[in-house]
Structures are given as structure tokens and as C-alpha cells.
């Protein structure tokens, strides 16, 4: 096993706080959070949004900057919203942008259950009240391409702490909406539906792990997993489950969709790891969307400094 000890995120890459903190947005978020006031998402729907999603897309102006953000060049909005793997809408990269517009995202309830002291259904409006941050993360797809995406969201830990996991909770299981009427891909058996994913509790509580509600300064488009999705930047993209309707705290390692579909190719952990190839293609390099030549893939997608300690003593070749 090889865990690189070299810093994957050099300090020079982290924007100094004085630069990144937009004081006004930061203070607004802080005040809102402190007062427990409803963080209403102000403004009117973006009329520039030509799609059927116009009514559900709002600007988010209260997201604080984060030291976890990379300063790498962010990908174009049209690439982030036009080149997607979201098999609920079809397996072509363009299918989600073509078909996801029909998905109804209001009302939206996220059921939180299992080993928690305070199980509850959460309305999306309640979740939007968590203090929001912008997190500019690298996203590495298992298909060996990558993007840099300015997510807006809040740490999953914030929500989990609120529902109080019991001592029996060891894993977190997630479930995507199942609604074949609006998700044409679910009428085919590309995968078992609903899509399910999971994390170890410590992975879920890690400060890098967020629930995203927006990107590029506005709420998520449905092709990106509106209204609520997971983002775990050191794992392959398919771990970051979209359009979540259920979060369960569980005792045992939960089943995950790609592992069910093909367990020899997709493991539970699925950490980005250039030294462990996918059986059918190499993971040592990737193509950043917008670039031509491939670049080397970094251990834990460049987040090794923050997350490598989660896997001390774990054989990452076996636990791929």
C-alpha cells in the first residue's frame, strides 16, 4: 500500500483568508446562523435560465468562502451542467441536461432515520437554513475525467450532529429519489433503483464532506442532483449521490449501487487512487475537462493531507 506523505494540497494553493472572505457575505451568513433566522434565498428566479427549471433556480448570495476551496481554474458552467453522469436520466453524458428539467424538486422531503436520537423528515427549506459555504472542489470521475466545481453547501456533519447519531451508528446510507415518471433512466435497468450510496461515519463527519444545494452562485440544476446532493471530493464521483431523499444511520456497511452492479470494479470505499487501477482502465491519469493532454491523478484526488489519516492501517488495494 502506498499512501503519499507529500502534501497533496500545498499551502500555496490555499487562498489567504484575507482574500477569500467576502466580509459582507460572511457576516450575513454568520448573523443569520446566529439568530437562527430563516435564510431566505432572496431574489426572483433567474429569468436567464431557459429551461423548465427556471422556477426552481435561485441565486444564493449568502455562501461564505472556505479555506477548503482550491484556487484552480473553475470549469465552465455549461460543462458542469451539460456533461453529467446521472443514470436516472439516461446513460449519455448529455441525457441529464436533456431530461432532468422535468424533475419536480418542490416540495422535497429528506427522511432521516436509523440509529439517531432525533429521526425526522426534513423539508428542503429547513436544510437551506444551514450556514452555507462555497466549496471549490476537484471532482474526479471513475471514467478518468475531472472538473473543478464551485459547490455551495454545508458540512454533512452539521446535519448529522443535529439528529444525534447513537453509539450504534457506524455508517451512513443515502438514497436517491425513485420516480420513473420523471426519471426516464429508471425505466431501464442500467442499475438497480433507487440509487444508493454509503459512507463510514467518520468519512461522513469529515469537514470536507458536504451536502450541496447549489453551484456557481445559484441553486443546483436537476442534472447536478437538485435539490440536495452529497459531495465527497476525495472519492470517485459516483459516491457523491444526487437528489437525496433519505439518509439513514446504520450499524453495518450499507449496499452501494455500483458495487451491486459490478463488485469487482467498484468497491465501497472508491477513494481516488492512481495506484489502484480500475480493472479495465488505468486510474493513473485523468483529463481535466477543458484541457487536452492528460494530467496525473493525485492520491485522494489531492486531499490526502486532510483524509489520509482516515485510512491508516487499511489496505487500499483490497478496500478499493
Amino acid at each position: 500500500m502506498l499512501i503519499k506523505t507529500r502534501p497533496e494540497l500545498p499551502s500555496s494553493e490555499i487562498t489567504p483568508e484575507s482574500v477569500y472572505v467576502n466580509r459582507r457575505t460572511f457576516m450575513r451568513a454568520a448573523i443569520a446562523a446566529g439568530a437562527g433566522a430563516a435564510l431566505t434565498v432572496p431574489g426572483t428566479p433567474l429569468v436567464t435560465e431557459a429551461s423548465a427549471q427556471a422556477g426552481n433556480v435561485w441565486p444564493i448570495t449568502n455562501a461564505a468562502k472556505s479555506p477548503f476551496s482550491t484556487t484552480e481554474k473553475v470549469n465552465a458552467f455549461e460543462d458542469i451542467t451539460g456533461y453529467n453522469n446521472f443514470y436516472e436520466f439516461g446513460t449519455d453524458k448529455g441525457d441529464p441536461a436533456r431530461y432532468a428539467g422535468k424533475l419536480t424538486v418542490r416540495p422535497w422531503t429528506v427522511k432521516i432515520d436509523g440509529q439517531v436520537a432525533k429521526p425526522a423528515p426534513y423539508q428542503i427549506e429547513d436544510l437551506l437554513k444551514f450556514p452555507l459555504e462555497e466549496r471549490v472542489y476537484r471532482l474526479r470521475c471513475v471514467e478518468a475525467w475531472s472538473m473543478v466545481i464551485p459547490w455551495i453547501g454545508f458540512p454533512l456533519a452539521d446535519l448529522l450532529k443535529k439528529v444525534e447519531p447513537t453509539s450504534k451508528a457506524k455508517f451512513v446510507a443515502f438514497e436517491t429519489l425513485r420516480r420513473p415518471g420523471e426519471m426516464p433512466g429508471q425505466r431501464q435497468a442500467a442499475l438497480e433503483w433507487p440509487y444508493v450510496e454509503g459512507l463510514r461515519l467518520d468519512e461522513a463527519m469529515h469537514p470536507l464532506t458536504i451536502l450541496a444545494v447549489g453551484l456557481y452562485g445559484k441553486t443546483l440544476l436537476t442534472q447536478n442532483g437538485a435539490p440536495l446532493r452529497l459531495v465527497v471530493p476525495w472519492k470517485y464521483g459516483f459516491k457523491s449521490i444526487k437528489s437525496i431523499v433519505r439518509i439513514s444511520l446504520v450499524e453495518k456497511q450499507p449496499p452501494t449501487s455500483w458495487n451491486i452492479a459490478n463488485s469487482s470494479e467498484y468497491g465501497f470505499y472508491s477513494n481516488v487512487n492512481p495506484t489502484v487501477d480500475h480493472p479495465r482502465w488505468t486510474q493513473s491519469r485523468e483529463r481535466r475537462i477543458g484541457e487536452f493532454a492528460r494530467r496525473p491523478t493525485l492520491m485522494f484526488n489531492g486531499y490526502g493531507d486532510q483524509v489520509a489519516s482516515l485510512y491508516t492501517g487499511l489496505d487500499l488495494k483490497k478496500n478499493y
Partner: protein
Amino acid sequence: MRRIIKVLVFLVALAPAARVVTLTVTDILGKTHALGANPIDTLTDTTGIWTLRFVLLSLAITPLRRLTGWNVLIRYRRMLGLFAFFYGALHFTTWIGLDQGALWPYILPEAGPDQAVTWELILRDIAKRPYITVGFTGFVLMIPLAITSTAGWIRRLGGRWWNRLHRLVYITGICGVVHFLWLVKVVEAEQITYAAILTVLLGLRLWWAIARRLAAPAMPARRTVSSPG
């Protein structure tokens, strides 16, 4: 008339390549995203699927001829086969040159950080990744067929040996379908369709070969100049 039809078939067969070139030029000059977010994948996929289509088209000529009696179809088989090779060559060049990056140092030196030509990685991938191994095999097997596609080579080899050699295209067809099945994350109707078409095309040949044997059992097979098709 015959000539006009042949030119028309040629132009239709060339159309996918023309479209790829148009999109590429539009993308580069106009920055219009004509090739999508991942242009190299688009180029690789498009040239790949047309390779498979032309391999299957050229394999369809003989069964179609036999079933319909339209012997005129034989006139287009060589052209379709050469187009299969043409698209295969484009596909292979796109993959090795643009996707794997062997060409970047020459056409776009400032393209990216990964400038060391990774021949070692490329060769390892060909050997180690089954879907690349079969795709590569299928393409390489087309090279002798393209070279010996001329009337001169048919004469030099003799019809019998030329026919035998050109049966390699059966293997290319199988390699192409398997390549497609193995490279996708989830097998869907598209891959199944190509596999089914190939199965029919090769199955008919097998069926006819068996029927021929059964029809003339004890006789030392009289060699007819059959086409390899």
C-alpha cells in the same frame, strides 16, 4: 449510371468523417463547443462507432447478396471495407495521438502538464487492458486486408488464398463488438444490437457452410471460388 451510384455511395460513406471534421473546425475556430465538453472523447467515440458500422456493413454484403440475389452489391464491398479501415485508422490515431497524448507535443506544445510522451503507458495499456487489446487486434487485422484489397493482390495471391486471408474480417468484427461490450460501464441495447447483427451475419455464414458440407458429404469438397464475404 453505375459510376454515379458508386460516387454517391462513396460520398455517403464519407459523410460521417466530413461531419467530424466540420465539428472539429467549428469547435476550434468558433469555440462553440461543437464537440461537447470532452471533445477528444467525442472524436474517439464517433470514429469508433463508424468503424464498427462499416465493418458490419461490409460483412453484410455477402449474406444480402445471397438472400436477395442482388449480385450488384459485390461492387461496393471493397469500398465499404476500405471505409471500415479508414474509420479504424482515424479511431486508432485519435486514441493514441489525442487521447493518450502521443501527438500533443507536436500539435500543441503548450497543451498541458503531461508532455512526456507516455509510450510505455500506451504499450502497457494495449497489453494490459482487454478492451484495448481486442480493439487493437481488430484494427491491426484490417491492415493486411486493406493492403491486399487491390485487383493486383487478388491476382498475386490467387482467389482461394485471397479469400482465406480476407476471412480475417470475421475476427475483426468479433473484436469490434467485444471491444464495445467491454469498454462501457453498463451494457445496454446499443451494444446488444451490434452484437446481435454480427451474430446474424456470421451465423448465416456458418449455417450455409454446414449446409454445404451436409449436401455433399463423402465427396472431397469441390472448390468453388466462393467469396469470403
